C-alpha cells in the first residue's frame, strides 16, 4: 500500500482526481443551496421572464424601446449602449492617445511638458471620480431656456447637447450604402496608377453626383435635409440629443483612456531600435518618411498586446456608467434584478455578455497580431 502512495504516477492521478472531486463538490453544493434558497423565496427560475414586458423606462437607448418592451429587448438595448460607449471610447482615446504620444516624445520642451502633465494628471485620479466630475459639470449647465447657442445648429444645456442631424429615411440610408459600395468597387477595379486611376476617379465622381441627385429629389414633401433642434416650451424638439449621462461617461473614459493609450503608444515608439531609425535617415528618408515607413509600423507591432489589454479594460470600465445613470448593460441587468428577481439568470447573462465582448476584442487583436507579426525565428 505504501508503495502506491510513493508512486509518482499514482500521486499524479490521485492529486488531479481529488482536485476535480473537490471542485465538483463545491459547484454542486452551490447549485443545491442556490436552488433551495430560490425556492424558499418563491422566485421563479428559467429564462421565461425574457418575454415579459419590463414596465419600467430606460432613459437612453439607440434602438426604440419603451416600458412595453420585453426584457430580452431591453437587455439587448443595454448591451448596445455598452458597445456604443465602448467603441466610441476606443476610437477617440486612441486618436487622442496618438497625439499625446507624439507630444511626449517631441523635442519641443513645451509640448513635452503639456503631454506629461496631462498623463500624470489623468492617470492618477480614479476613472469614476473623473466621470462624476464631468457629469456634475454637465448637469450644472444652464437650463434649456438659457442654453448656449452653438451657431444655430446645436444647443448646450443641462439636458444635454442637441445637434442638428441629417434627416434620412430608410431608403435614403440604403441609397447611401449602395453609393458607398459602388465607389469601393469602382476604386478596386481601377486600382493602379496613372491613366487607369484617373478614369477610376472620374467614374467615382459621376457616381457621387448621381446618388446626390437621387437623395435630393426622391424626398417626401416638406422634409428638409437636416433636422434642427428647436426650443418648444421647456424642451427641445428635433435633432439628436446627446444626454449628459452619455457625454459625461464618454468624455471621462476618453480622457482617462487616452492617458494610458498615449503611454502605450509612446512605449511602442521608443522601443523601436534606434539603429533602424538611423538606417532610415542614412538612406536619405526625411524625418516624416522615417516615421511613416519605419517607426510606426514597427512600433505598432510592439504595442499590440498592451494595446489590446487596454482596450479590453476600457470596455469593462464602461460599467461605471451606472454611477451617473447611464443605462449600460450592467445597469440594465442590475435594475432587472431589482424588478424581476431572477438574480441567477441575469447574472449569468451579464457575465456571458461581457465574456463574449471581451473575447471578441481579444480575438480580433490576436488575428491582427498574427497577420502583421514579424516572421522569423521565434
Amino acid at each position, binding site marked *: 500500500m505504501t508503495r502506491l502512495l510513493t508512486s509518482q504516477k499514482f500521486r*499524479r492521478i490521485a*492529486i*488531479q482526481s481529488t*482536485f*476535480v472531486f473537490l*471542485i465538483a463538490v463545491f459547484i454542486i453544493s*452551490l*447549485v443545491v*443551496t*442556490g436552488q433551495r*434558497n*430560490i425556492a424558499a423565496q418563491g422566485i421563479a427560475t428559467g429564462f421565461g421572464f425574457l418575454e415579459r414586458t419590463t414596465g419600467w423606462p430606460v432613459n437612453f437607448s439607440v434602438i426604440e424601446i419603451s416600458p412595453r418592451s420585453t426584457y430580452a429587448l431591453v437587455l439587448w438595448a443595454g448591451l448596445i449602449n455598452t458597445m456604443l460607449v465602448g467603441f466610441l471610447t476606443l476610437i477617440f482615446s486612441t486618436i487622442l492617445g496618438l497625439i499625446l504620444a507624439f507630444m511626449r516624445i517631441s*523635442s*519641443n*520642451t*513645451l*509640448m513635452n*511638458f*503639456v503631454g506629461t502633465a496631462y498623463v*500624470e494628471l489623468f*492617470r*492618477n*485620479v*480614479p*476613472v*469614476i*471620480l473623473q466621470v*462624476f*466630475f464631468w457629469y*456634475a*459639470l454637465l448637469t*450644472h449647465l444652464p437650463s434649456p431656456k438659457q442654453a448656449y447657442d452653438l451657431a444655430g445648429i446645436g444647443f448646450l444645456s443641462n439636458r444635454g447637447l442637441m445637434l442638428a442631424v441629417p434627416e434620412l429615411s430608410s431608403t435614403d440610408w440604403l441609397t447611401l450604402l449602395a453609393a458607398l459600395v459602388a465607389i469601393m468597387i469602382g476604386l478596386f477595379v481601377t486600382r493602379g496608377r496613372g491613366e487607369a486611376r484617373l478614369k477610376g476617379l472620374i467614374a467615382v465622381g459621376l457616381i457621387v453626383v448621381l446618388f446626390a441627385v437621387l437623395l435630393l429629389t426622391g424626398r417626401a414633401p416638406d422634409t428638409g435635409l437636416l433636422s434642427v433642434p428647436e426650443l418648444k416650451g421647456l424642451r427641445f424638439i428635433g435633432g439628436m440629443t446627446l444626454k449628459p449621462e452619455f457625454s459625461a461617461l464618454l468624455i471621462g473614459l476618453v480622457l482617462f483612456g487616452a492617458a494610458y493609450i498615449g503611454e502605450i503608444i509612446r512605449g511602442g515608439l521608443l522601443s523601436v531600435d534606434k539603429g533602424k531609425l538611423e538606417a532610415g535617415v542614412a538612406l536619405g528618408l526625411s524625418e516624416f518618411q522615417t516615421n511613416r515607413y519605419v517607426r510606426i509600423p514597427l512600433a505598432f507591432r510592439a504595442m499590440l498586446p498592451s494595446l489590446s489589454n487596454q482596450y*479590453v479594460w476600457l470596455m*469593462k*470600465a464602461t*460599467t*461605471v456608467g*451606472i*454611477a451617473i445613470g447611464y443605462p449600460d448593460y*450592467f445597469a440594465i441587468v*442590475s435594475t432587472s*434584478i431589482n424588478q424581476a428577481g431572477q*438574480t*441567477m439568470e441575469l*447574472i449569468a447573462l*451579464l*457575465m456571458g455578455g*461581457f*465574456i463574449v465582448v*471581451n*473575447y471578441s476584442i481579444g480575438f480580433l487583436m490576436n488575428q491582427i497580431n498574427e497577420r502583421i507579426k514579424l516572421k522569423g525565428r521565434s
Partner: protein
Amino acid sequence: MTEVIGAPMRATGPVAWARRHFFATWYDAIFSVILGALIIWSFNALISWAFLDAIWTVENKDQCDHGAGACWAVIQDRGRLILFGLYPYEEQWRSTLACLIVIVTMVLSCLPSFWSIRRIPILWTVGFGLFILLMRGGFAGLPLVRSEQWGGLSLTLFIFCGVFILGMPLAVLLALGRRSSLPVIAKGTGLFIDLFRSLPLLTILFAAAVVVPLLVPEQIQGSKLSRVIIAFAVFFAAYQAEIIRAGMQSTSQGQEEAAVALGMPYWSLVMDILLPQAFRNTLPSTINQAVITFKETSIVTIIGFFEVMASGNAAIGSGEWGNQYVEVYVFLALIYFVFVFGLSRYGSWLETRMRLGHA
C-alpha cells in the same frame, strides 16, 4: 577637387538652447508660442481660483456662490465626513492613528531591508492587525465601533489592505497551479484566472454582494463588506498571479533542476528559490497592480459602501454645498493623487534601480 564640408556641430549657449528646445522648426515655433500662452494663462487662472480669490472659512460662506474663487470652506465644513465617514466624532483620533499606522506599514514595505519572505507577512499582519484593533475597539476602555460605521479614507485604506493581504498568497497559489505539470490543475487554474480577468470588477463585486447570499448557507455568508473584499481579493489575485508567473518563468529552468538534483523539497524550491526571484523581478509590475487596485477601491461606492468617493458625494449632495462639487472633487482627487502618484513614482525609481544593477 571636392568641397570640404565641416562636420555638423552642436551650437551652445542660451540662445542655441532655446532654439533647440522651443523653436527647432517653424511649426515648433508656432506650437511653442501657442502652448506657452496657454500654459501661462491657465496657470494664472488656476492660482487665482485656488488661492488668491479663494474663500477659506465657513463664516464667509455666503460669498461662495458669488465669488470667483474656490470655496474651500466646504472642506473645513465637511472634511471630517470625507476622511472618516460616519465614524463617531470623539473617536476619530483612533481612525487617524489607524490610517497613519497603515501608511507607515506601506512605506516600510518599500524599503529593501524588509524584503524577505518572512518579514513582509509579519510586517503586514502587525500593521493591519493594529489597524483593525484600533478601529474596532471594544477593549481597554475604547468603545466599540462596528465596521458598518467605518467610512471615508479609512474605509478605502481598509479595503485596499484587505485585498492586498488576502490576494497575494492566493496569487502565489494560482501562479504555482497554472505552471503545474499536472494538466488538470494547470488547465483548471488557467480557466479560473482567465475567467476573472475577463469580467469587469464591478460585475464581480456586485455578484459577491447580491448573488453569493443566495448560493451559500447563512452561517458562512459573512458581512457584505467581507464578501466584497474577498471577491476583490480574488480579482486582484487573478491579475497578480499572471505577473508572478511571468516572474517565475524568467527564472531559468536550470535552477529548478539543480534544486531537484540537490534533493531540496518542493516547498523549499518555491519559497527559497522561485518566489524571492519572481517577486524581485516583477516588483515594478506588482507596484503598478497595487496602484490600479488603490484607484479601483473607488468602485465600491456603487455597491453602496461609504468609502471616500461616496463620502465626497455625500458632502456635496447635502443642499447647502451643492455648487461646490469642483472643490470637493479636487480634494478627493488630491487624496488619491498623493497615494497613487507616490506609489507610481516609487515604482519607477525601483525599475531604474533594478535596471542599473542589483535590487
